[in-house]
């Protein structure tokens, strides 16, 4: 069982402390919600885990691998998938073509072979296309495979972004506000899909989300940040009734 550990992570931008000494961990097969008011440091923490932001102090580890010393592409190569709040897709390409981009690391042919399109390049591309078909099927996007992203509804674009992460043979998935902009039916489908991904693939999932009913219904555990500091870490029911959380996040007097 793999373990993603955030250990005493601190990040400052100029004189502002975005994160102070934050520690928690996530094991494969667990779904953890990362919540907190705007500016709490949630996205900064996701950026630290995925290698986009280098922590000023502390470290992020995947088992014995020190992720915080690696560039983003290497972090992704270690099996950490990231789905962004606003999907960054190539809008002029089709759904299938966008998903093929995510097969990059599994296609290990060289540039000269690619220039000459040698037989093993054909074989590798066909194998990647089959994997893309499987993911399209899992996401319920087979019918939209040849549509360009430009003509795709926003909810489906988010699924394509999720599909890209799934094609990377990940063990952990980081989701940044996955239900922002989705309607109720899409939210319910996404919740079921994430639960299936956990049970089928054993993924560890870290979700940044503001929607309390969604996170409390989905997550095994909640981690709460406020002004860059971790103020609670536990079961959803315990965390949401914690006076400190209610005071800082829900705006109620403790």
């Amino acid at each position, binding site marked *: 069982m793999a373990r993603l550990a955030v250990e005493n992570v601190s990040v400052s931008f100029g004189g502002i402390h975005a994160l102070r000494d934050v520690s928690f961990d996530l094991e494969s097969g667990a779904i953890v919600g990362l919540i907190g008011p705007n500016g709490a440091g949630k996205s900064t923490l996701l950026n630290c885990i995925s290698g*986009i932001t280098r922590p000023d102090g502390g470290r992020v580890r995947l088992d014995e691998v020190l992720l915080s010393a690696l560039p983003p*592409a*290497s972090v*992704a190569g270690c099996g950490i998938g*990231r789905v962004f709040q606003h999907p960054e*897709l190539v809008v002029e390409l089709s759904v299938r073509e966008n998903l093929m*981009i995510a097969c990059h690391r599994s296609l290990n042919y060289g540039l000269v072979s690619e220039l000459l399109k040698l037989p093993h390049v054909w074989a590798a591309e066909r194998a990647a296309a089959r994997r893309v078909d499987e993911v399209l099927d899992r996401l319920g996007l087979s019918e939209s495979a040849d549509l360009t992203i430009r003509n795709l509804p926003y909810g489906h674009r988010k699924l394509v972004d999720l599909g890209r992460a799934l094609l990377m043979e990940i063990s952990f998935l980081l989701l940044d506000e996955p239900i922002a902009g989705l309607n109720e039916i899409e939210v319910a489908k996404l919740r079921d899909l994430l639960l299936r991904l956990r049970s089928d693939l054993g993924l560890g999932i870290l979700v940044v989300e503001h929607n309390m009913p969604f996170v409390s219904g989905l997550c095994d555990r909640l981690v709460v940040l406020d002004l860059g500091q971790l103020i609670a870490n536990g079961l959803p029911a315990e965390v949401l009734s914690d006076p400190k959380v209610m005071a800082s996040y829900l705006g109620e007097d403790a």
Partner: protein
Amino acid sequence: MTVATDIARSRRRSLSLGAGRLLLGLCFAAACAAPFVLNGYFLYVLTLTGVFALVALGLNLLTGYAGQISLCHAAFFGVGAYVTAILTQKAGVPYLLSILAGGLFTAAVGAIVAVPAMRLRSLYLAIATLGFGVVLQKIIFEWRSLTNGGGGLALDPPAIAGYELGATGLYFLTLAFVTLGLWGAWNVSRGRTGRALLIVKESEIAAGALGIPAARFKVIAFAISAFYAAVGGGLFAYLVRYIHPENFSVGLSIAFLSMVVIGGLGTIGGSILGAAFYVIIPELLRGIKDAPGLVFGLLLVIVMVLMPQGLWGLVRRLGRRT
């Protein structure tokens, strides 16, 4: 474009692919027949078109796919021309081997030029590459013992395996390189590298999250692009048979960039059309007394206003109607 047009497009894809292959075959047959129909001057113009098309193919991978602007491609073209000429003329290396060596050497130079590209974008990158272009041109000018500096290099007619190529031979050699270059660029654009370049252009952060190191692929794009430019340079040197550092100034870099934009950014076929437009149209306008430059300039404006996706965009639109 709507969902309906997307679906229609996917249904038509196999049909248009067949039509496209037929058209490509016809173009290739016409290109093979050209030397037997055209006079010496027009054969020279067509060979020059092929040379520039090679450069445009490489530049389109860099600018159209990876989103990196370069204003030093004339210098890459010049480095390729000089390395090929010096190896062939002074060291006695066979011509084809010299072209390949010039390409590989310039690819390494391109990889070095890519270092600032890791940090710079858009106009800032354009200015940095402009600086590199000036430096490379100056090195060619000042390294007199090797390049003969401002005196230029006069070259003997090219030969392969002891046979002098002549205008027709050089034309067919250029056609062979363009065909190979077109095939290679097509494969790269539709493979792992081309897809990586597209996501690097869209978002370096998204590329990183997909395990694609943006910096490495910028270097690869510059190196491939410089290789194409240098092979074009090696052919150009023996087409004109006299090269001078002034041949490779920033004006030519801007011309290469114009070919790519006119043809269609991010399109392989557009690179060929852009080069043809840039070389052949001014030749056709020579008959207009005193005003070919003016008319060509106006044509450039008209093409860009009416066809923002370039000439290849027009070809695609016409293809959809048929």
